[in-house]
């Protein structure tokens, strides 16, 4: 079973990298980009076969390591 974790900055946390990417898109002529937020995607291969248990376990992984919940939100997808 595979899981995919999306880690993004919380709303209200300034994202200087996202702002730089937005600026660069503007320089390339892509108009109409109001905001860019940069995050990360983490893919995990799990031995667990029960989707509910897998999601609970990956959620714990996020809280303990994969995300810094002071500044980041996360979303877990079981594939």
């Amino acid at each position: 079973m595979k899981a995919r974790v999306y880690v993004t900055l919380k709303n209200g946390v300034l994202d200087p990298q996202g702002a730089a990417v937005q600026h660069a898109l503007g320089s390339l002529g892509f108009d109409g980009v109001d905001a860019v937020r940069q995050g990360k995607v983490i893919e995990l291969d799990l031995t667990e076969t029960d989707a509910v248990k897998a999601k609970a376990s990956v959620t714990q992984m996020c809280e303990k390591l994969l995300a810094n919940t002071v500044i980041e939100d996360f979303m877990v997808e079981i594939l």
Partner: protein
Amino acid sequence: MRSAVIVFPGSNCDRDMAVALERASGVEAQMVWHKDASLPDGLDVVTIPGGFSFGDYLRCGAIAARSPIMRSVIDFANKGGHVLGVCNGFQVLIEAGLLPGALMRNSGLKFVCKDTEIKVETADSPFTNAYTKGESVTYPIAHHDGNYVADAALVERLRGDDRVAFSYRDNPNGSSADIAGILSENRRVLGMMPHPERLNDPELGGTDGNKMFTSLVEALVNA
């Protein structure tokens, strides 16, 4: 003063830290590998040096904060032990939950490496008793992720409890309220981005950093 320096793969200020501790105390610092399960007995202070532990993978300090030795460091701190984290060491202490807030990419997105004027915000701690509140010192900074993020409530709490140890005169990285270093609630854990251990000899350009280590000796040995 019996001290230890925790060494991770990618630490690069560990020897500077050891030299600074030894010069101030006259006792050789013990180097402790991150895979060790426990700290040596009888330590007065544990230091976490600067560098790029585990290549800054995932988040700066995130992997180091979960390494075997850190459980002992957290226990040591929770029992009232003194812990100093500089630069990557500050990032590790935050990731380990010993200090509040977060350290993010510098607001200017560039790695900043230069001497920086730092204001001493409190002399009331084992790390800063040799300073005068409000005095300026010059410490090098060298980091890509030193942008201290704290919401308004946390900044107010840190200030109200006199836990901001150092602030930048000219904010180089976008840190909330110009904060350069903070203390734990019991004032025995200090995390800071600037490097006092790198300025301990006239041949290195100055000796402003000595006060940090003479403060510790004063608090832990002479007091």
